[in-house]
């Protein structure tokens, strides 16, 4: 009985301490503690990531072992090792392609970027879409730095340690980016929903024309969720909800970036000198996505045009 009371007292104390942390954090504290923690966890995560990646590549290359015959297992081992080399070559090729894309994007946008590797992902059950990258204050990264990859905007830096930084992704529920439709120059705000493949576009003007297939770039307008440079590609409109004139008119937007497979990114350390408008957007597909519209290819490509002109 006495032991039980002691147990409950300790449980109560631990819960009270945790809840105090929650309250302090809600009042705006805790950022300092996170920066301190990243000073320790940053190098550890860097090291863990350096160990984990080759192991993953290696595991991916091992086929099914377990043959009885010695010769078969020898051959199998040889195949595996060759397969392993092939896989790593693929990996290197992918990295080279991602770096090329990044170079193209920063070249077209006249940004100066620092390349970075994603080394850790926040767990999905924490509801926050955040990643750690392997650059920090020592590489000139500051809070609110914009993060891009070869496809478009990835997010912005929300906390920086000496060698690592935490990036809140475009799809995080707290993310708000000033956006502009590239063809009509209509402005609005792109809000993350927590869904990895869809964000919400809210247009400022209720009667603004918006159509499926419209492409968005960042507008440079601050929307309370940090500062983004102009002209960074954001995504494509996939669905328009509500009718023109309705106050809460929302369009669903599919981001250009595939957030579940983020690997190499670039942190913009110097903004473009002139507004790149839509120069950075990927080349528009010649026909509208035939997979989505099916047989009505010509009708599909004709629909978005009237709104654009």
């Amino acid at each position, binding site marked *: 009985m006495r032991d039980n009371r002691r147990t409950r007292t300790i449980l109560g104390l631990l*819960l009270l301490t*945790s809840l105090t*942390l*929650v309250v302090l954090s809600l009042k705006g504290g805790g950022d300092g503690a996170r920066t301190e*923690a990243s000073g320790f966890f940053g190098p550890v995560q860097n090291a863990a990531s350096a160990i984990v990646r080759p192991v993953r590549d290696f595991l991916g290359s091992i086929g099914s072992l377990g043959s009885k015959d010695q010769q078969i297992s020898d051959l199998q081992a040889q195949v595996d090792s060759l397969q392993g080399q092939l896989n790593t070559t693929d990996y290197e090729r992918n990295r080279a392609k991602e770096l090329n894309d990044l170079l193209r994007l920063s070249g077209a946008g006249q940004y100066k970027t620092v390349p970075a590797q994603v080394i850790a*992902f*926040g*767990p999905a*059950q924490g509801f926050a879409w955040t*990643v750690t990258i392997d650059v920090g204050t020592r590489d000139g990264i500051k809070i609110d730095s914009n993060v891009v990859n070869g496809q478009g905007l990835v997010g912005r830096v929300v906390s920086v340690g000496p060698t690592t930084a935490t990036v809140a992704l475009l799809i995080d529920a707290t993310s708000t980016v000033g956006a502009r439709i590239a063809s009509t120059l209509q402005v609005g705000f792109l809000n993350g929903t927590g869904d990895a493949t869809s964000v919400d576009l809210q247009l400022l003007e209720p009667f603004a024309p918006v159509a499926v297939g419209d492409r968005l770039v960042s507008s440079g307008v601050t929307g309370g969720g940090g500062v983004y440079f102009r002209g960074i590609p954001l995504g494509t409109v996939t669905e328009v909800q509500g009718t023109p004139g309705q106050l809460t008119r929302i369009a669903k937007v599919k981001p250009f970036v595939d957030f579940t497979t983020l690997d190499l990114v670039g942190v913009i350390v110097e903004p473009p000198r002139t507004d790149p408008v839509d120069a950075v957007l990927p080349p528009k597909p010649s026909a509208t996505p035939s997979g989505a519209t099916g047989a009505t290819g010509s009708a599909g490509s004709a629909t978005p045009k009237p709104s654009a002109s």
Partner: protein
Amino acid sequence: MAWLRAMLALALVVTALLVELTAIPLFHLPGATPDILAVTVIALGFVGGPVRGAATGFLAGVLLDLAPPSAGVLGLSAVVFVVAGYVAGTLGAERDRGAFATVGITGLLAAATTLGIAVVGGLVGDPRISWDRVTGLMLTQLAYSLVVAAFVVPLVTVLWRRVDPPTSRYELSRQ
């Protein structure tokens, strides 16, 4: 021997945290991220009892809330993991139940931590909590945690017994 067990718990928690944040995401699994940290806390609760379980949960929650890439409300995971560790501790070690029941309980508890984060986060007004995602996250978490628990719970139990065998103290006192 208390400090040895504390060191083991700390080492296991930090390892689980690193694996969950850096290694597991590379496999691009759909839904939740297999919560190796929660399973480790629950496994340590099983062998350590309610007090050590709650303390381990607190440690694990605070580290998860502080380690990059954490964002948002600090202490949210700590609240939930304290309860998870305590509940696992009151349920007791595996001897009393058998392996299948232990793995099942671990999976259910790990899935319940997802619900716990959503409930506590919703109560304190965390803007990131989206109830549309909770069911999917809980179901995938249950599936992943059952698999993780099948390996992690026996491993933690063996390590715990090795650091502090139940009979060793008697033997030492006799010598």
